[in-house]
């Protein structure tokens, strides 16, 4: 089953203003697609629309098939069966995704208990296994979110997203809030997990170098529309659209300064 098929997806505000215009792309099993664009281009909105999480007052049209289930216009109950199992999301700011009043172990246990029905000792074992999968020590289970570092929090968010073994992971700027060395570690972790589980990955980012490092194909968004899509390598080397070219040139220009000193 195809993890994600988006066909002519548009999102409108209540006043009729169009925020996303006719977006189409698909992701096969194990594929990795990057969504790149500058602020306000509609990247995060795409992730929300795909998961059926648009804020009230926004309406989506077109078709989003998530593991074969139509998301657009679906009742909340049907979406509950899809989220977490078929696809789950890791957002930019892990502190906002975690409950500040609940120990980390309890938060990871929640989706496992609800989706896999585990209790007691088996649930505890599953939580520890989930922690070790994201390379976190057992003691993190007893910590509150504010007691661990930003990189550790993002690992916890990843563990929660993977708890129900979804076929698709959506990562929305998962490393933007992290320091560059931590970013490298989290990206390597994501890469290993996605490969190991054969998951599909929709990776959203503003930093072309980060997205290009992770994704095989890239969709470039500007002002809510797709301006170009193709293999990462082709886009980075020979962008066709003028906007993509300016994006790629800017990225190369800055990187060139660093390459000059530290090749």
């Amino acid at each position, binding site marked *: 089953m195809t993890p994600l098929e988006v066909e002519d997806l548009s999102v409108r505000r209540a006043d009729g203003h169009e925020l996303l215009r006719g977006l189409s792309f698909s992701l096969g099993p194990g594929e990795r697609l990057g969504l790149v664009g500058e602020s306000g281009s509609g990247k995060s909105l795409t992730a929300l629309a795909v998961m059926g999480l648009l804020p009230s007052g926004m309406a989506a049209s077109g078709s989003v098939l998530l593991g074969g289930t139509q998301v657009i216009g679906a009742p909340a109950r049907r979406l509950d069966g899809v989220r977490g199992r078929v696809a789950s999301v890791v957002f930019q700011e892990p502190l906002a995704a975690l409950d500040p009043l609940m120990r980390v172990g309890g938060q990871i246990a929640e989706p496992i208990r609800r989706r896999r029905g585990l209790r007691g000792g088996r649930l505890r074992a599953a939580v520890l296994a989930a922690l070790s999968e994201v390379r976190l020590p057992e003691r993190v289970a007893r910590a509150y979110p504010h007691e661990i570092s930003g990189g550790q929090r993002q690992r916890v968010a990843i563990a929660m997203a993977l708890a129900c073994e979804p076929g698709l992971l959506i990562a929305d700027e998962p490393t933007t809030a992290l320091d*560059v*060395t931590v970013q490298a570690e989290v*990206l390597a972790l994501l890469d290993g997990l996605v490969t190991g589980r054969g998951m599909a990955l929709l990776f959203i980012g503003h*930093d072309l170098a980060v997205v290009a490092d992770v994704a095989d194909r890239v969709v470039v968004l500007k002002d809510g529309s797709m301006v170009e899509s193709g293999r990462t390598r082709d886009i980075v080397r020979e962008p066709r659209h003028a906007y993509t070219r300016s994006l*790629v040139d800017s990225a190369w220009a*800055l990187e060139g300064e660093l390459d000059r*000193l*530290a090749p």
Partner: protein
Amino acid sequence: MSAAVLAAHEAGFAYRGGPPVLDGVSVAVTAGRNLALVGESGAGKTTLLRLLLGLARPTSGQVLFDGAELSPRDRAFRSAVQPVFQDPYSSLDPRQRVGRIVSEPLRAMGLLAPGSRAARRREAAERVAEALESVGLPADAARRYPHEFSGGQRQRVAIARAVVSGPRVLLADEPVSALDVSTRVRVVELLAELGESRGLTVVVVSHDLSVVAALCQETAVIERGRIVEQGSTAKVLGSPEHPYTRRLIESVPRLSRAARLR
């Protein structure tokens, strides 16, 4: 080597009862040599910048301005050293017109020539227009409000406010990290250009090594409150000696790597 405009000498800083945030830090800002302070969150970069700005006093060691101990109320210091902050959305008062925002340092520091109110107002308007022009904004920008500008333009407004008093040093805390990549390139170019045309030396706190390579001749790497490596940017980034510096450089995501691999 010319004398340092601004320098920290064995400077340390700790909050009351807390562990040191900075420990025995020595850096010197020499005219014409832009300096980068590089490191991760919590390393103490911003605290060091606050010491150099006179917003905090070192709990040990000294901060020197033109060779003498820095006194934050000294007018010569205030007009010579100006800050640019990270987020142009929060550093500009939304209820003031750009002209008023940019002229604020002139009024606050009493830098306008004594004379009638009208004459002072005229002088302020001229200097604002000149500052706006130097950052590439149109003269009519003075009559508009911050919300009418994009993020990159707002950062230009913040830079205009910083240069209007004719400072010798700009202290910029992550000046481009809130901006999109194409805007980022242009603001970095602007900062480099202002350095040349106005004889400004820029001190930048940044986690982005590409920005550092593009803008700064000198680099100091800070890890957990200590400087682990400093020297010319070419040397620090080109042949890093400290393992932490090496790890920082290796962690930078590169298009060239992606283009090769995929």
